[in-house]
């Protein structure tokens, strides 16, 4: 009885193992069938076969209880042994690949983690970048300072509202042009020099005060600050900031003009004082000397000589007084309003005024008016022309045709009137400091009174201009009159 029980338990156990071992291969095959790509598929099949074979041996063991199929059982065992060894060999051969595959999987996981972290931080960065873009956009859009991006050639890439307002152009109009196109010509060279230094990497930023020409033609003064952004070693774009300083500049210029006027007035007063001291007190005191002397007698010859000088001396006093009156009128600019004068008209008028003697000298006059007109008191301009022209003829070289070049050019906000002659010239070493002073004469034998150039200088200075001379003895003189071009700020 005990044996029967033992055998039944063994049989049931064998059968249960067989069923279980039969189930495993089916599960493996289903697993393979479900996955699209399975590495080491053959290994799975070997396992399945091996387990199936093992199962078969248990089944045959159980069967031998009823049917003595010992040979078949032995055969199954042999097949199982062969299959298991094949599997072992195959497994040994595949082992390195399998380990590698596992390792790759590990590192992939590390990579994936790193990637996820990077993605997270990128997201933060994006948020920050977004915020700084927003910040920049806010500053850009609402800044009272003009902000503009320009390409390395100077074309406007982007401009904010303040820039547009300041320059008087719409954004669309500005983006079609360059900063060079709307920069005041007198400021362009300086600006371009800075731009060149920036592009060469010699300088990181620059700041300058410059003028732009607005769309309506008016001038706006800006304090410009520029930096350059580089990308991959190449200049990418300029960031320019423009502050409107027109009002400040205008006030400053007004102060400077007023200062210059005051200084002019002061030096005029000094000059006036000098003229009174020498040219009025001189003849007046000699009249006193004379009357003192005559009271005490003196020879008839002396009396006659002195009395003959009374008229000359009195005339000298009157003439000096007249000159002083004229000087004061010039300086006070009484009844001498500026108007638009044509240089050609002034030249014509002065030619008409020339003495016959000068006309006979038959001067050759070459005229080149690059600037044709100026706002200036008309009588003064005529007088300036007359004095310079008549001097050029008066101080001509004996036996030489006077050749006179008269011209105007525009230089740095000034109109320069040039009168050049081939006359006897002036020794500037000796007389340079007093050439425009009252009653200074430099050439004997000429009917000079030393008033012409003095009044000319006063007239020029009354219009905030200046006069310069360049001269070489026996070669000629060049007079340059700088008159402010007052239509520009």
């Amino acid at each position, binding site marked *: 009885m005990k044996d029967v029980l033992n055998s039944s338990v063994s049989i049931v156990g064998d059968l249960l193992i067989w069923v279980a071992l039969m189930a495993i291969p089916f599960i493996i095959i289903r697993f393979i069938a479900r996955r699209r790509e399975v590495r080491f598929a053959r290994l799975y099949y070997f396992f399945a076969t091996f387990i199936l074979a093992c199962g078969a041996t248990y089944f045959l063991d159980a069967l031998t209880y009823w049917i003595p199929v010992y040979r078949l059982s032995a055969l199954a065992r042999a097949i199982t042994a062969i299959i298991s060894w094949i599997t072992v060999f195959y497994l040994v051969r595949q082992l390195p690949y399998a380990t590698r595959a596992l390792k790759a999987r590990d590192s992939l996981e590390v990579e994936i983690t790193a990637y996820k972290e990077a993605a997270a931080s990128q997201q933060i960065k994006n948020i920050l970048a977004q915020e700084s873009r927003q910040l920049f956009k806010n500053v850009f859009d609402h800044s009272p300072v003009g902000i503009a991006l320009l390409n390395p050639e100077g074309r406007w890439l982007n401009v904010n509202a303040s820039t547009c307002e300041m320059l008087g152009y719409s954004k669309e109009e500005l983006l079609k042009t360059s900063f060079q196109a709307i920069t005041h010509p007198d400021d362009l060279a300086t600006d371009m020099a800075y731009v060149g230094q920036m592009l060469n990497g010699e300088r990181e930023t620059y700041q300058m005060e410059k003028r732009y020409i607005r769309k309506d033609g008016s001038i706006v003064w800006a304090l410009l600050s520029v930096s350059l952004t580089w990308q991959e070693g190449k200049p990418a774009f300029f960031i320019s900031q423009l502050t409107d300083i027109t009002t400040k500049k205008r006030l400053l210029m007004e102060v400077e003009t007023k200062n210059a006027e005051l200084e002019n007035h002061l030096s005029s007063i000094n000059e006036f004082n000098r003229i009174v001291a020498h040219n009025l007190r*001189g*003849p007046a005191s*000699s009249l006193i000397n004379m009357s003192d*002397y005559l009271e005490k007698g*003196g020879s008839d010859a002396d009396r006659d000589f002195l009395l003959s000088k009374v008229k000359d001396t009195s005339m000298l006093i009157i003439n000096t007084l007249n000159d002083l009156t004229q000087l004061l009128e010039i300086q006070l600019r009484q009844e001498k309003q500026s108007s638009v004068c044509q240089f050609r008209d002034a030249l014509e008028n002065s030619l008409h005024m020339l003495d016959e003697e000068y006309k006979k000298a038959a001067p050759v006059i070459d005229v080149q008016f690059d600037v044709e007109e100026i706002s200036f008191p008309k009588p003064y301009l005529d007088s300036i022309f007359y004095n310079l022209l008549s001097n050029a003829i008066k101080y001509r070289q004996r036996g030489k045709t006077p050749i006179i070049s008269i011209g105007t050019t525009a230089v740095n906000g000034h109109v320069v009137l040039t009168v050049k002659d081939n006359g006897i010239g002036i020794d500037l070493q000796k007389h340079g400091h007093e050439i425009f002073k009252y009653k200074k*004469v430099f050439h*004997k034998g000429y009917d*000079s009174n030393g008033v012409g150039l003095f009044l000319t200088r006063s007239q020029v200075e009354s219009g905030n201009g200046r006069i310069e001379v360049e001269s070489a003895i026996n070669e000629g003189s060049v007079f340059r009159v700088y008159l402010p071009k007052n239509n520009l700020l």
Partner: protein
Amino acid sequence: MNYKLSTAGIIDDDQIYQLVMKRTIEQSGLVKDVLQFYDGEEAINYFKEKQQTPEALPELILLDINMPYMDGWQFLDEFIKIPFKGDYKRIIYIVTSSSTTEDQNRAKQYEVVSGYHVKPVTKDMFEQMMQSIGAIA
């Protein structure tokens, strides 16, 4: 006559002053000869010409400031550069119609200038000038 000085020079473009001054000097009896120059250029040429014989040059010079061609200042600038032979004793007075401090201060900058007188010059003023020369001598 016993002259105090042998020669005086007047450098001035004012003809009335020239005559009156010349007569004043003559009548004082203190100076033998009076040389007259009507501008600075004329005067400086004379001094340059006679630099080898300074005994013939004026010991007293009355110099005006405001003159054509070469004024008193330019004359002084040229004068101090002349290398006179031997020991040329001379006294230079500026005699001008200008009483401005500008001119007076400028005159002080010249060591060679002994005094500054504002026109008109009277006989008394000239005698004072001569007295101060006596005190120096």
